[in-house]
């Protein structure tokens, strides 16, 4: 237990030190990376743990973003309330989606969530009188400062808090239920797991965090367009992050998101080829190392250390 706190503190110290070393643009990349980390981990919880391979995460994030933005713009609502409302709206819509897909699995679930995602995107585009569609909705910034540091810490706290909640949830018996559903739904049901309740719970919670990420994104970037948030290729990027990091691990999702986002920026000279690399990485990892890239490397190292320890003890 002491070790746990120690490592968390070290991680926090590193995270807090980041703004000292990063100049404005890379700090921006860090903020976006943390935002993606929240999205990827919410997807991991839904798909990697509960087995619901939904393509709706980005659409839900978009719902969170637009809800918050439109509420703040059209009423006197303070931005914090706006973001929370956005997350709640996303959770509510996630609830509806969860209910609708209860009896769907595998490709049907995927197709339905793709359809849902597209419907949201097209509607937001078509109703441009309200949403400004492709022209871009100008959203008030969360902080009046030009400096990105407050945004960085806000996102960090949001991410840490969300990971804490999701992590505790997954470590509890609810997490076990989720995993049972993923492994074998009928068997889990036979063992008394209330499939309906936990599937919906997975949707609602992951949608809440997706909406939260979306709301923050809106008030950070300051401009919203439906296509930039909700295109299927962007959902693909989030999935890639989760898969590369390790689909069965929240920490993996975070690591995958940070890695992919920074690599994306770092490899800018390669222009379109960087996406080719990610696509290829995604396919290869799925094919040869289903548990992702980062997590298995860690596992192997940890296993070796255990071996070494037990040898020296013998």
């Amino acid at each position, binding site marked *: 237990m002491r070790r746990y706190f120690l490592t968390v503190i070290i991680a926090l110290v590193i995270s807090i030190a980041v703004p000292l070393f990063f100049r404005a643009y890379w700090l921006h990349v860090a903020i976006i990376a943390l935002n993606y980390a929240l999205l990827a981990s919410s997807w991991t919880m839904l798909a990697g743990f509960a087995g619901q*391979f939904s393509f709706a995460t980005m659409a839900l994030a978009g719902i969170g973003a637009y809800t918050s933005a439109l509420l703040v713009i059209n009423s006197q609502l303070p931005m914090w309330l706006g973001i929370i409302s956005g997350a709640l709206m996303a959770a509510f819509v996630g609830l509806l989606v969860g209910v609708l897909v209860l009896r769907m699995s595998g490709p049907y679930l995927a197709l339905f969530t*793709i359809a849902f995602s597209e419907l949201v995107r097209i509607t937001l585009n078509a109703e441009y009188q309200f949403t400004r569609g492709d022209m871009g909705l100008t959203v008030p910034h969360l902080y009046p400062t030009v400096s990105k540091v407050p945004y960085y810490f806000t996102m960090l706290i949001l991410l840490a808090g969300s990971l804490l909640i999701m992590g505790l949830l997954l470590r509890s018996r609810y997490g076990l239920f989720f995993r049972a559903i993923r492994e074998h739904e009928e068997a889990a049901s036979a063992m008394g797991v209330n499939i309906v309740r936990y599937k919906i719970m997975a949707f609602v919670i992951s949608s809440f965090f997706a909406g939260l990420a979306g709301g923050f994104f809106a008030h950070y970037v300051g401009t919203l367009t439906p296509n930039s948030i909700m295109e299927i290729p962007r959902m693909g990027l989030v999935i890639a992050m989760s898969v590369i990091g390790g689909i069965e691990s929240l920490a993996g999702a975070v690591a995958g998101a940070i890695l992919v986002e920074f690599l994306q920026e770092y490899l800018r000279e390669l222009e379109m080829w960087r996406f080719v690399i990610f696509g290829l990485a995604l396919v290869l990892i799925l094919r040869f190392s289903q548990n992702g890239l980062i997590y298995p490397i860690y596992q192997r190292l940890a296993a070796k250390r255990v071996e070494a320890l037990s040898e020296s003890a013998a």
Partner: protein
Amino acid sequence: MELFVAQALNGLIIGLLYALIAIGLSLIFSVLKIVNFAHGECYMMGAFFSYYFSTLFGINPILSVFLSMAAVFLLGVAIQYLLLRPLYTGAVERKDEYAILITFGLGVFLQNVAMSVFGPWTKKSPDFISGITGIGIFTVDNNRLAVSGAALVIIVALLVIIGMTFVGKALRAVSQDRDASAIVGINPHRMNLLAFGIGVALAGGAGGLIGPIFLISPVMGILPGIKSFVIIVLGGMGSIKGAIIGSLLLGEIESLGSVFFLDPTRGLAYKNAFGVLLLAIVLLLKPTGLFGEKHVRME
């Protein structure tokens, strides 16, 4: 009234083009039991292959389409062998997941490869027949007529192959019962390769045919891909008859719906939504679609 007929005719033509793409997807599903999320990208590759065959090598446009179908067939076989085999050799635990993710990832990969290698600019492949024909109020580009005709021919040919040849019977056997087919001596792995190859080749052919009409770009596969999903769900996954009827239905809904929409100035904006809305509704109310069988999970 004349306008209605003209729109309906347009919908029919569009529907036939959709059918070519959707049938391939349906075939893949019925034999391999997976949804190929890279189907739109295979259609796109077919379009580009056909374009380069006819412009770089000066090959006759019609021949280019056939060559591109062959090329996409080979691509499909490679994909099936390299990426999808583990599904059928027992190497994968969660099959549905794997199939979705890997075909989706493949789609992303192909799209970006095309963007990087072919460039983002819009291209047009050479016409098959030039000129236009008039049918009442409706004037049709001859290319569209030719392509609808070609689509019809291909569809009929496919139905004949599936229905009457030995290979077709073998494919149908594997789609009905994998193990039983293996027992009677049909090699399911080979049938997998064949089905996937033919399935994506059909999409590639559609791409090659559509090139002169709707122009070519690396992102051209995204929407048709989504529409082909709509169609196979609507028609019933695994049913080729359903795919054909579903395609015609979707073509009509899009053409008529966007014009006779409640608010005509917005109809076009929502056009692409009709399909996905239909998809969502069908999945909710009757997931097996019009003609499909009950979904059998892969494990």
